[in-house]
């Protein structure tokens, strides 16, 4: 009876050990699968991951010279769109970013209405600002010069943005990637020229766009 009873008592332990072994093998396999693109990147570029922009953690800041004196900052807080990013950093990230003009914040309600009104962004006619990347060149250290079509006030023109990779966070199931883009445009190029001639407001507008996206798998 004893051996029998010993055998019976050992069986569950073996089963547990086997299950643990299988489970750990599975986990390792899972990590290996996740890490695989990086491992193969020595020979081929990793497939870019798709990210959907997280509107809560994206924003677009603009800066403009006011009456030739101070630099005035405003913000659009509704930024939507998508981007791609290859973890090996060999492929330039791509972006399709849309900003809702009516989401502007300047700190003053009346000024907000002026900015989105017909004098400037004319949001009732041109509801969005959009950037769609068309190419990119790596500058090293997670920095790219991303070229793309920038549409504002109904006018589309090519621009080049300096885009810095700010981080990739998460785990095999969930990932978040972040970028910060900086570029300048002349608003008169986009037909938004009120105050340029009399220097009430500068022509050059600097945009700083903070992007964070959720991996869509």
């Amino acid at each position, binding site marked *: 009876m004893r051996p029998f009873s010993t055998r019976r008592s050992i069986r569950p332990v073996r089963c547990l050990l086997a299950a643990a072994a299988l489970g750990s093998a599975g986990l390792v396999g899972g990590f290996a699968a996740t890490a695989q693109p990086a491992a193969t990147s020595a020979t081929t570029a990793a497939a870019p991951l798709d990210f959907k922009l997280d509107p809560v953690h994206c924003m677009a800041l603009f800066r403009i010279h*006011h*009456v*030739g*004196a101070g630099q005035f900052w405003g913000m659009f807080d509704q930024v939507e769109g998508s981007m791609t990013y290859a973890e090996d950093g060999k492929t330039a990230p791509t972006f399709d970013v849309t900003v809702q003009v009516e989401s502007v914040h300047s700190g*003053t*309600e*009346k*000024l907000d*209405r*002026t900015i*989105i*009104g*017909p*004098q400037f962004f*004319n*949001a*009732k*006619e041109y509801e969005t600002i959009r950037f769609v990347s068309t190419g990119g060149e790596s500058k090293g250290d997670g920095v790219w010069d991303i070229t793309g079509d920038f549409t504002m006030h*109904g006018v589309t023109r090519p621009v080049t943005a300096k885009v810095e990779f700010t981080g990739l966070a998460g785990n095999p199931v969930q990932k978040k990637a972040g970028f910060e883009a900086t570029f300048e445009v002349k608003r008169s190029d986009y*037909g938004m020229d*009120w*105050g340029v001639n*009399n*220097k*009430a*407001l500068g022509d050059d507008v600097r945009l700083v766009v903070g992007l964070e996206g959720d991996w869509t798998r």
Partner: protein
Amino acid sequence: MIKTVIFSMVLPVLAGGGLVALCWLLPPLRKWRWLSSACFGLALAVGVFASFVAENGVPPFPPAERAQWLGLAAVLAAIFAILGPMTGSAERERKWPATELVAFLAGAIVAGLPLIAELAGGEAKSMFSGTGPADQIAMGLATAFGFLALDKVVETRHGVTLPLAFFITFAALAPIADAASWITLTFLAAVAAGTSLVAALAARFSGGPSIGRGGLLAATVLLVVFPVAGYRQTYGEFPWWVWGVAAGAPIVLLPLENPWIAKLPPWAGLTLRLLCVAALAGVAVVVAIQSGSGGDDLNDYGGFN
């Protein structure tokens, strides 16, 4: 800001006001009946167009942007100012349906502006954001009935009454447009007000000329297009009727053309009429400013440059 005020307000008022002053004050020109009847409307159109161009450049036709209809409205006002006197003056040839026909045609043209723009090669789009056929018909009816309502007043009230009434009306539209944060419309209304004031001064010293059908049609077009543009294109936080009450304030002159008011001394009648216009326009301004406050006025836009 000083440059902006000079180019967008002072010079346009000088251009428009100078035109009407010349036409009404110089005897050879004053005797030219067509010119005398057209010059107030032409002055409004010249002033408004000059201000628009100073701010936004020459508007193309068909317009590329809806806001350019403001500049084109000035062109239409000029055309109406030129053609209006040719339809006969109310005092000489008031035969039905001539007046009504003029009103109907003017209203139809205003209502059909998007269609005309489309026929001229433009893309099919509404005149202002969110306006549809119903809005266009309403604008046409407002033009027609505005003209019909005030044609009789134009016939009766020569001299300073109507230029001052239009001065008050346009002067009220300027702060309302500012409360809605549209700088261009603010300047255009201010220029129309300034031009009307110069016209009133000229009328005071030139024997009381009539603004004529040309002047009435031009003013009516501007008073229809300005508020609709202001309401549809901006984000003003006040009710829509503010625009309508301010722009429609001169209509109050019609019921004041009655035997009781006519018995008052001229100065009392004039004062009463202008007070009634000012009361209506004033209510609109107060509501707009109270609802649309919170900013730093023109310093928001340009400061002191």
